[in-house]
């Protein structure tokens, strides 16, 4: 093979090169229509190519390379301590650039590995993409695995896995297996996902659906959300309806619409649901607020329960000094010492020491020391300890009216 060498600072116009093309520092190569190199293009230092280029391999070192045209590399494109800008499309087998790669047209390769930053002006299609720093792509990203050490900001995605160190933003699509982001993750359009694990903050567009969400700090869904498990360390919110398996929130959890769970909700601070809240069990350290809340298992409230239509569960347990508004309906209803509640309905109702209720309807009712109620209506037994106050005489009846909810 004869090959061709472009000397330092030289400028040539070439159509075809049989063999390798050696390009020295600050050289300029212009394609005569289309430049086809049967061997490898080797650049030492800065270089510029005008027009479309096709070659078997492309190797650059210690330079800034500008490729003004579409580029097809049958094997690998490498840039050692180099930055490469492709102003057209790029197709290669593997791409490995130390510093910066910019591709303004569509890019396709088995793998892209870039040490510094990768910028794409159109779509990118690969099996694997690994970027040490920043990865920005205007169009759709299709890949199995994508990793960025710093920031990732891409268009629609069709991925198996996504990992980013700092932050990641996508414009919807699908990440089938997992998303792992250290700092902040955002999807500005509906996203289908397997699992999301974010250390800091995550925001999803309404209509997103997935298996599990685990966020260390703050989570928000800008509309409806469907999930299996949602776990948030700090604050969580769903601006539409939530539907899923289980929820675990350390601090506050707000849902503007309804929240329908097949399992348990555990909230350390407060939960506020604009419409109805349903599930098997609920445990709230602070405050529960909903139009109505219905659980097939237990409801344990540490502080306050505010409902318009009521709170119903097989077992309702209110901690001492708790407060409720709206009816409580059980099963077994246990009102802690010095708690204040409104109407209570249950198979078995117990008002703890010094607790007060408005009206009590139950089969078996027990009032502990100092408990008080305006009315007590029962069908089975009424047990009262010392200093109990019932303002109207207790009524034993044959049957009670149906309970609310």
């Amino acid at each position, binding site marked *: 093979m004869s090959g061709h060498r472009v000397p330092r600072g030289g400028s040539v116009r070439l159509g075809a090169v049989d063999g390798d093309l050696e390009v020295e520092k600050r050289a300029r190569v212009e394609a005569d229509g289309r430049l086809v190199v049967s061997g490898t293009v080797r650049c030492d230092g800065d270089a510029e190519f005008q027009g479309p280029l096709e070659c078997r391999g492309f190797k650059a070192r210690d330079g800034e390379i500008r490729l003004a045209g579409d580029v097809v590399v049958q094997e690998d494109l490498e840039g050692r301590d180099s930055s490469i800008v492709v102003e057209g499309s790029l197709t290669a087998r593997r791409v490995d650039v130390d510093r910066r790669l910019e591709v303004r047209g569509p890019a396709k390769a088995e793998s892209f590995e870039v*040490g*510094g930053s990768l910028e794409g002006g159109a779509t990118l299609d690969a099996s694997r993409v690994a970027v040490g720093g920043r990865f920005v792509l205007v169009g759709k990203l299709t890949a199995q695995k994508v990793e960025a050490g*710093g920031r990732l900001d891409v268009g629609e995605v069709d991925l198996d896995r996504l990992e980013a160190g*700092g932050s990641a933003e996508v414009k919807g699509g699908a990440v089938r297996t997992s998303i792992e982001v250290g700092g902040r993750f955002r999807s500005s359009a509906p996203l289908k996902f397997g699992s999301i694990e974010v*250390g800091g903050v995550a925001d999803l567009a309404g209509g997103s659906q997935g298996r599990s969400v685990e966020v260390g700090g*703050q989570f928000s869904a800008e509309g409806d959300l469907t999930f299996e498990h949602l776990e948030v*360390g700090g604050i969580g919110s769903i601006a539409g309806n939530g539907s899923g398996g289980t929820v675990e929130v350390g601090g506050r959890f707000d849902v503007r619409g309804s929240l329908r769970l097949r399992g348990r909700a555990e909230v350390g601070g407060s939960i506020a649901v604009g419409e109805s809240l349903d599930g098997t069990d609920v445990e709230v350290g602070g405050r529960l607020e909903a139009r109505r809340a219905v659980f097939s298992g237990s409801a344990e409230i540490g502080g306050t329960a505010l409902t318009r239509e009521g709170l119903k569960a097989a077992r309702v347990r209110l901690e001492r000094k708790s407060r409720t508004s709206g009816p409580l309906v059980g099963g077994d209803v246990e009102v802690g010492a010095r708690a204040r509640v409104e109407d209570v309905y249950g198979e078995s109702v117990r008002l703890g020491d010094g607790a007060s209720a408005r009206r009590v309807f139950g089969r078996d009712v027990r009032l502990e020391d100092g408990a008080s109620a305006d009315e007590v209506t029962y069908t089975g037994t009424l047990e009262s300890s010392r200093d109990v106050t019932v303002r109207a005489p207790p009524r034993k009846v044959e049957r009670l009216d149906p309970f609310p909810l």
Partner: protein
Amino acid sequence: MAGPANGGPSRRREATDLYATVLEVVKRYHGAARITRVSYGAGMPVDRLRNLLERLGALGLVRSEEFDGRPVYEITPRGQEFLDTYWKMRAYVEILGPAGPPGRR
């Protein structure tokens, strides 16, 4: 690169932000992080990065070994623990907002 550890809104990068940035880049190379590559990824000159990696190594947050006569770096489980705590704490700081002196009641 925008913001601390390329993550959030801009504020002055503190030492912990730099450590987190470097650890995140090292993590992406799965045990084969060369110092030049980490330098491009973290946007930090090699000499400064070398000192920082030494510090991270002394704290047990990264470990290094020779590969082809050159050191390569890997994040340790302790380093991963640092990152988890760092990002969670960053989020809480953001949630809580800027803190003024506690008011008197």
